């Protein structure tokens, strides 16, 4: 039966040699190599739930009066988009589950990408021959941020509108082309032309998912082509020899198990933990705002930077050249992306290492990279935390203005401290290890010597 099927396939497609290779493709053995897989599986859940949602969502700014089953909104004027999202939540059986699973999946998707990125960064997995894989991953991350932003923006609830207002302000602030770009995208001044909703929709459900899918396919193809990098954990593992487990039968059940575990967690959260209760925010109107308006977590670093930048515009007489939101909303993410994107080349240029690497570094082995990474991600994380300073005021009573001033200093000082501390820790760890090695070696030598002496003694004793 198996042989017949395989033969059928082979004679019709000629794909069996490729299958033969794929079945025994080697996966090296470390839990941290599975983080990227979580992102992939969350993406699968996103596509599945997302397709379901499109069957009910009506992307339109057209005004309507709500008559659905959520009482506190009955009789309110709202857009068809928001109305259909309410209906999806209250009047479509399992609609709310799918909506919430979709939203949790997006949060987990980006979290998994970030964890995966950190693993690759700190182990030097981006080095030759894997620079392009790294670059594709970064592109996927930033495409995903935009994808998520458009997803919660197109629902047209109060938080959507506030988020879009800020996005509009940031696009406007881009030097030279800002106004043209904003008017082109929105089709006019904020809140935009009626077509803006369709533009968000087609980008969210079609353009960006396809882009992410293509990037993902290319990313995985490159991984497979160069094979996985590995840690020097198995004794046989070298720069030239990959040691691990074959795709089938060892890796496949575990991987698909992880797919189901990811899906289980997402649907468990989707069922039991409420996310983005749009009916509590209400429909958006330009003249309305709410305290504590926040983006999803993966854009929290941008609200943090927008809030921390001191109040100034670059102006000449009455003309504004660089409006304030540019620094926090546009330049900051561009810097983060540029530094991460350029890092493999920077390290080659200044680290003087242009060799290919299949063995991953332990973070301590490369103190400068590790220290830079810790400092850099601490910088981003601090700005991220500053983005929820207003909630810290609500919960812990910390003075908001004092927090802002504290963070303005902290985002400069703490990364510097982090750099030097981390570098030192790495060097100390290495040194103590070397001492350990030396001791071991000394002990081994001593043992050998003892054995040799014993052998000699035996020899001497033998004739006697």
């Amino acid at each position: 039966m198996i042989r017949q099927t395989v033969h059928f396939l082979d004679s019709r497609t000629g794909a069996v040699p490729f299958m033969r290779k794929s079945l025994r493709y080697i996966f090296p053995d470390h839990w941290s190599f599975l983080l990227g897989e979580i992102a992939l599986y969350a993406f699968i859940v996103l596509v599945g739930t997302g397709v379901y949602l499109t069957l009910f969502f009506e992307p339109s700014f057209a005004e309507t009066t709500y008559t659905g089953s959520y009482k506190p909104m009955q009789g309110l004027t709202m857009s068809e988009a928001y109305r259909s999202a309410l209906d999806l939540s209250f009047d479509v059986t399992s609609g709310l589950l799918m909506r919430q699973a979709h939203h949790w999946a997006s949060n987990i998707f980006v979290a998994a990408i970030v964890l995966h990125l950190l693993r690759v960064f700190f182990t030097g997995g981006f080095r030759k021959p894997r620079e392009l894989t790294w670059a594709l991953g970064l592109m996927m991350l930033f495409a995903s941020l935009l994808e998520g932003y458009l997803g919660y923006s197109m629902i047209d609830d109060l938080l959507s509108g506030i988020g879009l207002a800020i996005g509009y302000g940031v696009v406007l602030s881009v030097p030279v082309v800002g106004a043209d770009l904003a008017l082109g995208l929105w089709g006019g001044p904020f809140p935009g032309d009626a077509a803006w909703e369709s533009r968000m929709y087609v980008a969210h459900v079609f353009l960006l998912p396809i882009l992410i899918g293509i990037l993902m396919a290319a990313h995985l193809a490159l991984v497979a082509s160069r094979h996985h990098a590995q840690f020097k954990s198995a004794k046989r593992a070298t720069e030239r020899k990959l040691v691990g487990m074959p795709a089938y039968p060892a890796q496949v059940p575990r991987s698909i198990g992880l797919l189901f575990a990811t899906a289980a967690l997402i649907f468990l959260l989707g069922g039991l933990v409420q996310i983005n209760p749009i009916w509590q925010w209400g429909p958006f109107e330009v003249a309305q705002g709410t305290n504590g308006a926040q983006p999803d977590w993966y854009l929290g670093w941008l609200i943090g930077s927008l809030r921390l930048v001191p109040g100034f515009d670059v102006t000449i007489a009455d003309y504004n050249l660089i409006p304030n939101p540019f620094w926090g909303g546009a330049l900051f993410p561009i810097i983060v992306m540029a530094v991460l994107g350029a890092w493999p080349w920077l390290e080659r240029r200044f680290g003087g290492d242009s060799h290919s690497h299949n063995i991953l570094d332990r973070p301590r082995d490369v103190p400068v990279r590790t220290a830079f990474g810790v400092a850099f991600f601490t910088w981003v994380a601090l700005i991220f935390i500053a983005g929820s300073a207003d909630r810290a005021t609500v919960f812990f009573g910390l003075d908001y203005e004092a927090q802002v001033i504290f963070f303005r200093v902290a985002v400069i000082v703490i990364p510097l401290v982090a750099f030097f501390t981390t570098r030192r820790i790495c060097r100390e760890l290495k040194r103590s290890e070397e001492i350990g090695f030396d001791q071991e070696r000394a002990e081994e030598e001593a043992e050998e010597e003892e054995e040799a002496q014993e052998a000699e003694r035996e020899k001497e004793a033998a004739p006697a």
Partner: protein
Amino acid sequence: MTTSPDGEPESRDIVAAGPESPRSEVTVAALLVGAAVSAIAFIGVYSVEKFSTQHELMGLTLAASFAFVAAALILLGERVLPSEEVAEDYPEVAAPQEEEEVAKVMEESAAGITRKRLLVGAGGTAGGAIGLAALTPALSLGPWFEVAPLYRTPWRAGRRLVDDEGKPYKAEEIEQETFYTAFPEGSSHRNLGASIVVVRVDPAALMLPPERAGWAPEGILAFSKICPHAACAVALYRKPTYGPTQPGPALVCPCHYSTFDPGKGGEVLFGPAGRPLPQLPLTVDAAGEMRAGGNFSDAIGPSWWGIDMEQPH
């Protein structure tokens, strides 16, 4: 494919022997049955009439069936199927011979061309022009280079201030220590330049710039409700119940907490806003109703490259 000497001898078994655990096989089967039961439970919960915890139960049953499958597969991998260590050489980083051949094919194909530069130039021009032509229809997306709409506001001298329901505001209705959201009579609320906040302060405490004398009859002030930082609605007005011990009055944006001083013509007190809140001149007509005395002091909404901040005035 290279095969390591200790990896996979082709003639004998390819896959190493598994752990042989009949008990685990039974457990895997039981877990799969659990998955089936949960999935059927999901169908059941979905099918019955709506009840209060239906959503939670649907999530729970669906998640449970996925979790059972996950557990079954992981157990299958760990205890039933073989997990052998194998090794293989990494692929060569590069194939120098093919590289050389590709380069040769490219070079030799073009060897007979005499006007190489001309062809490359013409080709590049054609490509660029077609690319531009393909992008041109994108210009219809919006008024790309026409920034006038960004300055536009519905406010003109004489336009009445009305509330959310269209009722005009009278000067006597505007009290101190509170704020009012107002719109120009007959205008869409969706226009970014429409909404304003109106507050009344003690006329003696006013410190408006000299050119705005007469903009605040009886101490009544109006400002654009849209933050000049990032277009959020300035929906907070803090005013002290007791001036001597409490922070002074201010309009605050809830997005990035830019804080504006109404008494000083919307000057920035705190936060990232780079310019003051645009002020709208007010007058009181014979009937005691509030009317705009003109357009805003500055351009409303967030700034952009080259904006003339004093444009509407």
